[in-house]
């Protein structure tokens, strides 16, 4: 996976004229991110917040600003097209925050993104933040992050914040935090992110937060075993107390078979050499132990 999230990253915000898009565009800018343009079809020509130019199409925005990354907030029915437009325009990294994209659309979009070599993160994700380079492309509260050497990956937004809040409060900083999204089909998998963290020199420790449902955590474990990973990983699986057959908010978090259960996931990760976090309140405690080992 190619991923460049740093102080040089130039970001356009699709859906900047919407409430959420506008709010977070400014929050990202405040954090330090270069927000170079917004895109809303039919609203080209405006200046958002008196400073960010709005264009009718991603083509135009990219052409005028040389952006390489897109952050998407447009409503679910229009999000697939927004992603496709970014891909077609030559954007390298697409981060889709939008929640509620139909799975059948994501099957198509996943394939188109792969075909074009585009890194798609999400949908239904909190985005990516690089505290070292002061680049936040997403909706996470910037002030809880601190620069450091721990990479955090999770399906969930607020659970990422929980982990980061615990870490930062113990003085443990983060190199990069990625929320891959809670849907069954997302553009970037755990494996992609783990692979990235493991070869990233700035990341020395990894926090991996999985959930019930699907087999993505087991696949990640298989991957770790296959590459004989030695970078320390602390892993938490949430949802052990969720009942079968119910959708726990995330479309992917439904236990439909043995594999979907927390126990199976924990066993796989343990087997792959991960340090299992026994309780959601003990994320930073476990990481600290690993660091001080």
């Amino acid at each position: 996976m190619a991923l460049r999230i740093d102080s040089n990253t130039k970001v356009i915000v699709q859906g900047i004229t919407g409430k959420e898009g506008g709010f977070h565009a400014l929050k990202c800018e405040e954090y330090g991110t270069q927000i170079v343009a917004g895109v809303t079809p039919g609203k080209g020509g405006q200046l958002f917040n008196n400073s960010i130019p709005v264009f009718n199409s991603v083509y135009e925005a990219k052409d005028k600003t040389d952006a390489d990354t897109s952050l998407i907030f447009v409503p679910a029915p229009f999000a697939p097209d927004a992603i496709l437009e970014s891909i077609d325009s030559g954007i390298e990294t697409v981060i889709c925050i939008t929640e509620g994209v139909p799975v059948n659309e994501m099957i198509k979009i996943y394939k188109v993104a792969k075909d074009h070599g585009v890194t798609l993160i999400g949908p239904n994700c909190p985005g990516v933040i690089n505290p070292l380079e002061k680049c936040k492309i997403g909706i996470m509260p910037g002030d809880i992050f601190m620069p450091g050497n721990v990479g955090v990956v999770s399906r969930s937004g607020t659970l990422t914040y929980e982990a980061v809040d615990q870490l930062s409060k113990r003085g443990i900083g983060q190199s990069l935090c990625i929320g891959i999204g809670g849907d069954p089909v997302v553009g970037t998998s755990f494996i992609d992110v783990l692979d990235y963290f493991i070869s990233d020199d700035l990341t020395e420790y990894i926090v991996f937060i999985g959930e019930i449902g699907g087999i993505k955590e087991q696949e990640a474990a298989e991957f770790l075993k296959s590459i004989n990973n030695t970078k320390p990983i602390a892993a938490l699986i949430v949802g052990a107390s969720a009942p079968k057959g119910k959708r726990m908010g995330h479309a992917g978090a439904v236990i439909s078979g043995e594999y979907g259960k927390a126990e199976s996931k924990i066993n796989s990760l343990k087997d792959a050499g991960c340090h299992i976090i026994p309780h959601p309140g003990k994320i930073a405690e476990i990481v600290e132990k690993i660091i001080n080992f």
Partner: protein
Amino acid sequence: MKIHEYQAKELFKDYEIKIPEGYICKNKDEILKIYKTLNDEVVLKVQVHAGGRGKVGGVKLVKSEQEVIEFADRFLGKGFQTAQTENEEFIVNKILVEKVSQINSESYIALLVDGSNQSVNIIVSPEGGMDIEEVASQYPESILTLPINIITGPTDFQIRKINSFLRYEQIYYVQLRKIIRNLYKLYLNKDCSLIEINPLIQNNSGEIIALDAKITFDEDALFRQNSVQGLRDLSQENLVEIQTAKLGIKYIQLQGTVGCIVNGAGLAMATMDVINGSGLKPANFLDIGGGADEHKVSEAMSAVLSDQNVEVVLINLFGGILRCDVAARGFLVALDKYNKKAPELIIRMLGTNSDEGKKILSKSRYNISFAENLNEISEILITKR
């Protein structure tokens, strides 16, 4: 979103997938009428949104008017539970009456999305009529999973492979191909998230027939599926879940005593785990969702309070767009409206305006414990055991 077997079978009919001759009935008279016209023997099937009906008598071959009457009296209008319903009750409003099929073989077929290969997958087994999870754990070699390429759809070579895996004679290939192609069309056209036929049978006239039918739909695609929305049977769903869903709140009723209000699905699950870890049981899953305002927060609280089992309410919030002071006021609105004694509250708030939020709540007349983190929540909960 779930629908009933009879509705799934009607969709099968639209897609030219054969089903047994059958009629949906709302009362005893209708069932008796159908019984008389059909034959000496019919199969009666209660229509509820629950699996495992057969094991508790909800599917029955009946051979006399007397048996028909007994079945109807036993189930119609009554609550229904199975091993898979986890103490929830489903009202039986309809019974499907079907002609008996002669069964030469029973297979299993399902279509669903696997997030790991980013595809719709066909899953088949020649061991139909059994619990598929049991088959998967006991005879994993008798399950075949084939991913469907989004560009081509199910291919002929895959269907040949399935035909032989199901131990069908070659002559069944053409029928099977039509079924699989049409199931896939149905899956895509209607934005299904699961189609399952268990069993798919061969009868003694050489036909392949869907004896059972289960379809669930992708909730995220309902906005573009008007006809599917029309199939929704609210009598099979939890009233509070329906009402909160309209506001974008994801609430799922569970059986414990600790109600919880969280923003974010992942954190909500983690919070449930914390409750469990403290030796208590969550009364619900609740994710307030994005774009929450005072009204939404207040409705979330009301939903939790409406559950008679709730003894403690645990609030775990990360303020972002949602300001904690706004949330605090929302909670108080609902608590003030609540006409019984308010349960104890455990509150943890972080992020935007959290200090103000906590101040507002601490000034209220309710019994509140504040926690700084998940471990403190645990500690407080343990004292409530």
